């Protein structure tokens, strides 16, 4: 009996030679100083206030990554960051007795998955928390939508947020790969800590509705003596139903030496849009935001152009079919104004589709008392729109690398139509507002200079917004084409990266937002310029 058990054990336990265990990680510090920003109070940790001038980040990070593979058939990977904020949250005496309030931290799990290789001939499965990055462009990938983005660090230009997924890759021959991914639960994008600025004030920027007349009416109401002083923003998260799951397919391979792929994604955009506003009698407003659905058809091609000294090129495009998103606007009514003593009640505002005039209905405690004879304001039209990245890279000599991309549709842009910006002068109600195309055009370019056998890297990246072409449709069906009211805006991102010794790196740099307050990168909701010092040790 003992012999049988021993033989069974030997058969079932993989030989030590078949087990591949790797443990690696990083210890990292990131200190940043904010310049010329608009102050914003953060709720947590309370000591981390974003001052006009002040330290905005004081992170320490310990990363641990464990990879365990068995006999080239199975691999399990875990990747966790322990991030210490470096600021306290000691708002009261009780907090002073709690270590987690004196030294707040968070855990970020970037991977927790199991790979199963060759489950069937050519078929691999990956199940668990993972990131799936599609596309051939650098960082700006309109076809990569399975993971929403983490916008909390502008230096990363949107890092994919890991999510629980089931992924199947079928590789029948060569480099042809067919991929299917299922994501049961939607994870929203993580917004920058300055993002609430965009929604917390009703008077700093108009509601992002598309109709000019409707927008003006809502704006004037917000600026009037009855407009809200305080705005609270709530979210309507998608329910964990099958209807709200996401899925995607991709087919990729090589044709005439060029890498090509086609993809389809069904899911939601990671940044929420306003769905409803309720204006209360005490001049507070509650805003409800939700995540719009979308279907995306993607295609990309990448390769090398030999006659141009081997320049690398890529083209990545996504045709997005969004769900139409409308804004419902309600105004609480005094009980004495409620018809038939049906209290509480509120007034719903819509607009006449022909004249643009406001029309009102009434909603009682049990539903509509009078349905307004009009349409709700459209925030995101169902018009399909294109996002595109075209780029290339080149080496000059052996020490200089140049990368350049044209981008139609930045990572946070969604929907056809008009984008609204905050006022140039926040305290002047008569400041003219600026609008431009919601899907903007940008040039992103960078240069790397490698010195001292790659020990020193000088890097400069820049983003510049280009003038957008706007199309206005006249009542008679003709169109006017004109450039937007253009104001320069962009980002400058210089860095000096010194590999002090093996696996050790010191980085000094700056991230500068350029442009007026009423421009995309000058908008205080996007963030403020920062200087930074980072130190990284990899093990």
């Amino acid at each position: 009996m003992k012999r049988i058990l021993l033989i069974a054990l030997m058969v079932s336990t993989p030989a030590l030679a078949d087990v591949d265990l790797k443990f690696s990680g990083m210890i990292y510090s990131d200190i940043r100083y904010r310049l010329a920003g608009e102050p914003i109070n953060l709720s947590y940790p309370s000591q981390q206030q974003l001052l006009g001038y002040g330290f905005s980040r004081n992170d320490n990070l310990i990363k641990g990554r464990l990879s365990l593979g068995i006999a080239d058939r199975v691999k399990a990977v875990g990747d966790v960051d322990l991030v210490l904020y470096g600021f306290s949250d000691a708002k009261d005496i009780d907090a002073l007795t709690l270590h987690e309030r004196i030294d707040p931290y968070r855990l970020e799990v970037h991977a927790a998955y199991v790979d199963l290789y060759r489950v069937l001939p050519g078929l691999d499965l990956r199940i668990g928390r993972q990131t799936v990055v599609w596309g051939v462009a650098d960082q700006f990938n309109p076809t990569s939508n399975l993971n929403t983005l983490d916008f909390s660090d502008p230096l990363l230009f949107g890092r994919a947020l890991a999510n629980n997924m089931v992924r199947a890759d079928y590789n029948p021959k060569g480099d042809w790969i067919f991929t299917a991914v299922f994501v049961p639960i939607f994870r929203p994008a993580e917004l920058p800590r300055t993002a609430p600025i965009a929604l917390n004030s009703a008077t700093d920027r108009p509601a992002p509705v598309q109709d000019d007349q409707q927008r003006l009416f809502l704006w004037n109401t917000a600026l009037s003596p009855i407009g809200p002083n305080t705005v609270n923003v709530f979210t309507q998260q998608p329910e964990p139903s099958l209807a709200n799951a996401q899925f995607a397919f991709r087919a990729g391979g090589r044709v005439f030496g060029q890498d090509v792929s086609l993809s389809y994604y069904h899911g939601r955009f990671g940044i929420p849009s306003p769905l409803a506003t309720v204006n209360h009698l005490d001049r507070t407003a509650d805003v409800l935001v939700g995540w719009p659905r979308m279907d995306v058809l993607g295609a990309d091609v990448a390769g090398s152009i030999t006659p141009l000294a081997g320049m690398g090129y890529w083209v990545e495009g996504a045709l997005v079919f969004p769900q139409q998103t409308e804004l419902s606007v309600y105004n609480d009514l005094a009980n004495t104004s409620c018809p038939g003593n049906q209290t509480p009640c509120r007034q719903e505002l819509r607009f006449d589709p022909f004249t643009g005039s406001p029309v009102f209905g009434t909603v009682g405690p049990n539903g509509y008392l009078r349905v307004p004879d009009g349409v709700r304001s459209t925030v995101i039209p169902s018009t399909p729109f294109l996002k595109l990245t075209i780029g290339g890279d080149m080496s000059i000599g052996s020490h200089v690398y140049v990368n350049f991309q044209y981008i139609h549709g930045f990572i946070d842009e969604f929907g056809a139509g008009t984008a609204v910006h905050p006022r140039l002068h926040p305290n002047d109600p008569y400041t003219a507002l600026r609008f431009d195309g919601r899907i903007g055009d940008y040039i992103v370019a960078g240069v790397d200079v490698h010195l001292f056998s790659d020990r020193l890297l000088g890097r400069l990246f820049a983003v510049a917004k280009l003038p957008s072409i706007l199309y206005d449709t006249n009542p008679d069906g003709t169109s006017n084409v004109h450039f937007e009211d253009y104001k320069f805006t962009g980002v400058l991102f210089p860095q000096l990266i010194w590999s002090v010794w093996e696996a050790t790196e010191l980085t000094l740099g700056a991230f500068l937002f350029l442009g007026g307050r009423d421009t995309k990168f000058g908008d205080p909701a996007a963030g403020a310029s920062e200087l930074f010092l980072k130190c990284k040790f990899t093990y």
Partner: protein
Amino acid sequence: MKKILLLLSIAGAAHAQSAGEVLKLLDQARHDFNDLTLESKMTIYEPGAATGRVVTFTTMVKGDKRLIRFTGPPDVRGMGLLTEGRDTMYALLPAFGNRIRRMGTHAKNQSFMGSDVPNEDLAGGNYADAFTPKLVGTEGNSWVVELTLMPGKEGAFPKQKLWVDKTSHQIVKTEFMNDKGESLLTMTSGGWVKDDGSSTHWSPRSITYVDHARNDHKTTVEMASVKANQGLSDDVFTQRGLQRGN
């Protein structure tokens, strides 16, 4: 009769007179295996320094495909390169979610990890497909061949001078030159032995690169082990293979 033919072919190989014949022997010898796996340690020295920065990697070769996987130091561990011939190169980027990035062939102009090893030295492919040879003589037990890059072909060094060993038919020394014939980089190799698993393929146990344009900056590559004909599957040399191995 068979013996006479055999003797004639050996004699012919040792006394190949035309540059084309030498190049053909060289290309045959370089690819005289089904597959090859090398464990390498590269040390990059600053001019005058006694110690240098160490990078370790595993290289697998099959046909015109080559897969390089970095095993150290920690900041590059897990990165990989997959090349097919001279014109197709992919990089595996663990820091970007294990994304595979197609590289333009201009990347061959960049130095390999800050070393003096030209990226194109890592790519596969036959010399005869990219260079026009000229036999300039012999030196010791080596043929000396000058190569000129063919029009329309990409390469960081338009001219090269090779010393091809008459016994192993492998390169024991290379001078990498610009189009004016000025020597920019010199490669010398030593410790040639037959690989484990092969009776015909030779590999060096050490290679030294000296960059004359950088004040004789030096890189050495030592091969801890070279194994041939291990039965590597074609699956290994695909983009999926590049991702799986990390």
